[in-house]
């Protein structure tokens, strides 16, 4: 699938592959324990402020189930301690650590590294 492949080429396997740290938005722009969508080139990335755990995650905004640009509007949570995101459309859940679908056979989603500097959120891309 074209869109998914395009996203994959931006997701790093390990941190040394990161070429660009994109300054996405200020911490205060994100809701607590929830997500928002950011635009990078023509990609849509869902960024989650997991304030309960003091962690940040990013993944593609596209849900592979019905190809809907909605993951940032989903609910985050955890299962057995691992963070996950539930798509608001049909509640398919995906691991925020590795993108694996946790309750179905959907394609894996791409996840992106996040860092926080001076109150700003940066997302790492390979190009």
């Amino acid at each position, binding site marked *: *699938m*074209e*869109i*998914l492949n395009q996203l994959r080429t931006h997701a790093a396997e390990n941190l040394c592959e990161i070429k660009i740290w994109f300054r*996405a*938005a200020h911490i205060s*722009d*994100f*809701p*607590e*324990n*929830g*997500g*928002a*969508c*950011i*635009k990078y080139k*023509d990609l*849509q990335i869902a960024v989650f402020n*997991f304030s*309960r*755990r003091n962690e940040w995650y990013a993944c593609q905004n596209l849900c592979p189930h*019905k*190809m*809907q*640009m*909605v993951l940032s*509007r*989903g*609910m*985050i*949570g*955890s*299962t*057995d*301690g691992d*963070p*996950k995101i*539930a798509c*608001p*459309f049909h*509640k398919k*859940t995906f691991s925020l650590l590795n993108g694996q679908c946790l309750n179905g*056979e959907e*394609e894996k989603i791409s996840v992106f590294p996040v860092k926080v500097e001076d109150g700003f959120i940066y997302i790492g891309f390979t190009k």
Partner: protein
Amino acid sequence: MTRIIVVGNGMVGLKFCEKLISRSADFEIIVYGEEPRPAYDRVHLSSFFSGSSAEDLLLTPYSWYESNKIKLLTGELVTSIDRNEKAVQTHSGRKDHYDILVLATGSSAFVPNIEGVERNGVFVYRTIEDLIQIRDYASKIKKAVVIGGGLLGLEAAKAMIDLRLETHVVEFAQRLMPRQVDDDGSAILVNKLQQLGIQVHINKSTSRIEGNGKLEGLTFSNGTSIDADMLVISAGIRPRDELAKNSGLNVHQRGGILVDDFMKTNDENIFAIGEAVCHNNMVYGLVAPGYEMAEVVVRQLVNDHIKPFKGFDMSTKLKLLGVDVGSFGDAFGETPGSIPIALKDNRNGVYKRVNISSDGKFLLGGILVGDAAQYHLFHQMVANKIPLPNQPESLIFGTSSKTDETSGVKNLPDSAQICSCENISKGDLVFQIAQSGVTTLDGLKKNTKACTGCGGCAPMVNDILKITLESLGHKVKKTLCEHFDYSRQELFGIIKVKELRTFNQVLDSHGRGDGCEVCKPAVASLLASIWNEPIMQQPTIQDTNDRYLANIQKGGSYSVVPRIAGGEITPDKLMAIGRIAQKYNLYTKITGGQRIDMFGARVDQLPSIWAELIEEGFESGHAYGKALRTVKSCVGSTWCRFGVQDSVAYAIFIENRYKGLRAPHKIKGAVSGCIRECAEAQSKDFGIIATEKGWNLYVCGNGGARPQHAKLLVNDVDMETCTKLIDRFLMFYIRTADPLTRTATWLNKMEGGLDYLREVIIDDKLGICDLLEKEMKELIEGYHCEWKKVVDDPELQKQFKHFINSDDTDPTLSFVEVREQKLPSNWNEMRDKNK
């Protein structure tokens, strides 16, 4: 690497692949399937007519085959086997070499040789394609006949009813389901079918299919006839042995590839499994024996615990058209000396028959119609030769209470087979529960695959889970999810007493982990029902519709539904909706709830649309919330010549009273002005019908997938009493129901049912009526329009943007124009485009 070619990608062919790859990676597997899609769930084929799509029926997606390195070629019919060269060839000319060949070609519908079967409008019932054709044809016609009163025929008849056709079943034998039930059992079934509007014609042999091009009717051998627009033939199966036969493999004269106890054909490199096979003079038309055959072959291939196929018990339990039918062991009492004991209850439509051994010690088999709750227990008693009680008739004459059932499960030996589709014994389940610490049915399903086939064993598996957990000292109770060990009702008490106000407070004090998509909205609903504070204060624990105060639609746009209480609206307000919809280019539609829905708004447009609506005097309609939706009304006594009370005024009053009220699930009401019931009040959570003397109050009705009529709570009460009772009723529901449980299901599960509900909210048996009324009063007084909160607060509006780092809108939103309005682009097409 040994190369295995599987011909046929049906249920059994797929099961063979699953079993093989789970045991060994030493095989290269190629699968040929004639059908256009990968293996699907033929057993639940009929659910295609009650809402499942072809996609839902797939057993595994294409990607499963890929990731397990199985080469799947769909749409390829294998036409010949060259046994000397060990190669197969397909209709498209593809040729492949095999080391081992597995034939899993299944069967086709048996079509009797009746004059005229070639006419248009005659169908069989076997594949998804058959069903698509039936559905398309059915849309143009009225009356369908099904030939075959067996298992498959009755299933087809159910489908005809689902398609809203006048339905007739024609059976050649003198009774329905001749292989499973006897004449008395069939009589009860015929009765039940007739109640459902299905006409049954037994003892009828069809001699000609009439018509000219398309069919117009059937003529029977006794000279009578019947008109019909469509005919579905479901009169049995015919094993697909043509490929085997043409390649010189032995087949049975009545059909079926002949195999030995190890599923080998007369060619030692060729196995055959599933419905295509004839083993020991038997063709098995069920999945479970086919799965067992697959197991037998896989064990030989991986050379581990090899065992023969020893035939299979043909006991069955199913729900046909809402009627339970079970048939097990020696159902017809053919064992010499066997003694039948039967119970025939025409009033309740129940027939039970057990056959016991001549010495009265063992159960041999039996038939259950109308109530088959004891099926699994009886079946296991036969299979495991469990001694009968002293008065064996107590088995069917005694009341079959739930506790009997679990104690029965307790007495089963570990070897008792519980899930016959996956061949899982009681011992396997107990071992899993004890060793791996599973505590839920879902967990057990995942670990053992039990209940994943036909699902019939689920109640028993659940009982075993409960008993085993109890014996391990676990307390078994209903909990929300992995983050909370409490039920919704318990959390209601906790939140209220401890005055918890946020999700994090509740989680930190009474839960663990970080929450999830199950407990967050459940707790959000509780907080709203208890404190009625604006849900926008905790947006990220709300379901997406609540978070954006609008309903998300295909493509990611939203719909907006303002409240139109009782369905009454002034021309000015109608025009205001029209103007606003036009300005924002929204699709408009009258909903099933007597109001107007405007679709296709971008998330960033929502606050300004609301602002304009509020300006015109509208409020949120809470179409997005698990909350009060609408109170429908009919015109009532003000205009209607039959009306006896003012239903519109009462509906508006009630809708405004409960607007914004959050509950475990949505709540709907209606008020009808007279007994003609034009507002359909009896299908609502609370329904009010006017009488000459006052109002009748009905509760716990439901539309939706499982419609249920509301039950009469009180009659002829005045408006004040009626309203007070609804206050109590709703508040009691809000306090005690499980998450996402409508009032109908809540009542169905309530011990004591309607009588108990009456005792609580009318007789005040628990002494809580004052409290319920007080709580409801507080909620009503705390009402606020959620849209207005956002419109008045620029901070809150910031969330209503697609990107937070750009003012661009979502470029993937796309619409098409249909019937002069916009619609979202079809998501399946969007999906394909991106493939």
